[in-house]
């Protein structure tokens, strides 16, 4: 398997911008929240949220309902901006990122949403290949990647079935395949294993583990860690998001230490 950094298309690479925000080991950082504050619907969601995720890290972010896990993922995807503080993703300050640069950022991120949003009237293979098309890969490369991913997920025989006919776990599997096929630098997953049968959950967890081993930074948001700890890789760190800040941040502790 080719290394992740080598497979990101040239148009997907953004030059880092120096905005004067605090930087901790810039070469190593991928996601860095620094004293981020965020209000949603008049409610303070994050109060001085500081989170640092280095490259190739594997993190499980736990938190209760309305704790802000999904908002945190949306901020990394540049759907939301911090009210105060600094947020850098792969060296880019998302506080003042121009709208024209956001698509390039998102091409470096693979998102597995809680409820998969797919192209409903398209087949599995069409859905999975979209990130490769957006990145501008050649058709030969696309076909090879598709074949490998379909073999990995076991969807080869169903590749021409339209996704609106699939069951929820299979849809999530398609979503995961789509999020990982272009080998993004960051993979975000929001409750990816919820309501999944054991076989599919293991398959999906295996895909995430494999992506992490190959060089991707993986961040999984979940309400509880019970169903995950058995399946995720040993190097996975668990953080807890509570009352607007990270209660346990091993990476930051290690870094400061």
């Amino acid at each position, binding site marked *: 398997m080719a290394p992740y950094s080598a497979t990101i298309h040239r148009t997907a690479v953004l030059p880092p911008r120096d905005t004067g925000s605090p930087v901790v080991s810039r070469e190593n950082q991928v996601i860095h929240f620094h004293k981020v504050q965020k209000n949603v619907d008049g409610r303070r969601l994050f109060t001085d949220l500081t989170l640092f995720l280095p490259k190739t890290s594997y993190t499980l972010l736990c938190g209760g309902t309305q704790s802000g896990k999904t908002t945190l993922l949306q901020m990394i995807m540049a759907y939301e901006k911090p009210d105060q503080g600094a947020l850098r993703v792969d060296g880019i300050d998302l506080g003042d990122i121009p709208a024209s640069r956001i698509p390039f950022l998102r091409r470096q991120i693979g998102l597995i949403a809680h409820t998969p949003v*797919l192209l*409903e009237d398209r087949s599995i293979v069409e859905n999975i*290949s*979209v990130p490769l098309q957006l990145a501008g890969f*050649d*058709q030969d490369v696309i076909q090879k990647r598709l074949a490998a991913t379909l073999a990995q997920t076991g969807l080869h025989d169903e590749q*021409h079935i339209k996704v609106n006919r699939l069951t929820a776990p299979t849809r999530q599997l398609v979503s995961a395949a789509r999020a990982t096929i272009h080998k993004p630098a960051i993979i975000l997953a929001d409750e990816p294993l919820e309501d999944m049968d054991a076989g599919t959950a293991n398959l999906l967890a295996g895909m995430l583990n494999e992506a992490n081993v190959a060089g991707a930074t993986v961040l999984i948001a979940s309400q509880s860690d019970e169903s995950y700890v058995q399946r995720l890789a040993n190097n996975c760190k668990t953080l807890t998001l509570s009352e607007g800040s990270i209660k346990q941040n091993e990476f930051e502790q290690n870094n400061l230490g």
Partner: protein
Amino acid sequence: MNSSRTTWVSRIAKPWQTKNPAPSRYNRNARLHVQLKDCFTSLLRTPPKAAFFICALILTLPATFAIWSGSFASAEKNLLQSRHITVFLNPRVSNTDAKLLATNLATNKRIIAAVVAPLTIQGTEISTLNIQPSTNLSNEDLSVITRELNSHSSVDFVDADATWLQSNVHAIETTKKLAIAGSILASLVAALLVFGITRADLMRHQAEYRVLNQMGASHSTVLRPVLLRSLLLTSFALCLASLLAWGTVETAAHLVDISSYKRLIPNSLPVIQLLSLILVAFISSVLTVNLLGKKLLNLYLSAT
């Protein structure tokens, strides 16, 4: 989100779907013909049924009006060219005097200025002289010339039957103006319709754009397939419109009895005119889609 529809067009698209499963219309590095093929497949799979035919029908109107206005313009010209002044000579006038009169008329500055066709002398025993007035000569000028000729001793009487012809010309000219106005109006309607179809296409695919946006599609990436689809759709509609326009003109020519005007009004379609018309309509449609559609899409994507 589109629901999958199995129609005869989707069955036609089946081979392309299996051969080219990847949506290469979103790949900016893919060759243009590959993108076009993918857009074509996409159109076949989810064809805009009613909109397509309405578009074609509306596009027919400016084409028909323009062809008719062209026909009326040539009819007006033909009518004006058909005006003749017939000078009946006095039976007592000898051939020598008649030739002298013809020479005088031919060298008369007013007649030379007014007449485009050469003076013709009919018969071995000269009895009539024919003059074809210039097409820009008014009825009043024609009356003056007629009076001058009538006062000549060698002339029995002058038949200038051009007045009713000119009245017909006025009627034709008015009809031509109406046809041009109709053509402009129908063109505007057609442009609005193409814009509306593009807008409907955007709305129909908004869920798809949301997914693409999440995966990092830029506005131009989303816009390109929309424009290509509109381009293909407009091309198909124009082909259909040209056929319908041709049929309308031909049918009208046969329904209305124009046998007496056959020499004046052409009842067959001028192909060059139609082709240039289609070209103009095509370019204007593409420009409409490009300018208005792009603005609309950018607004829509920015809002979402």
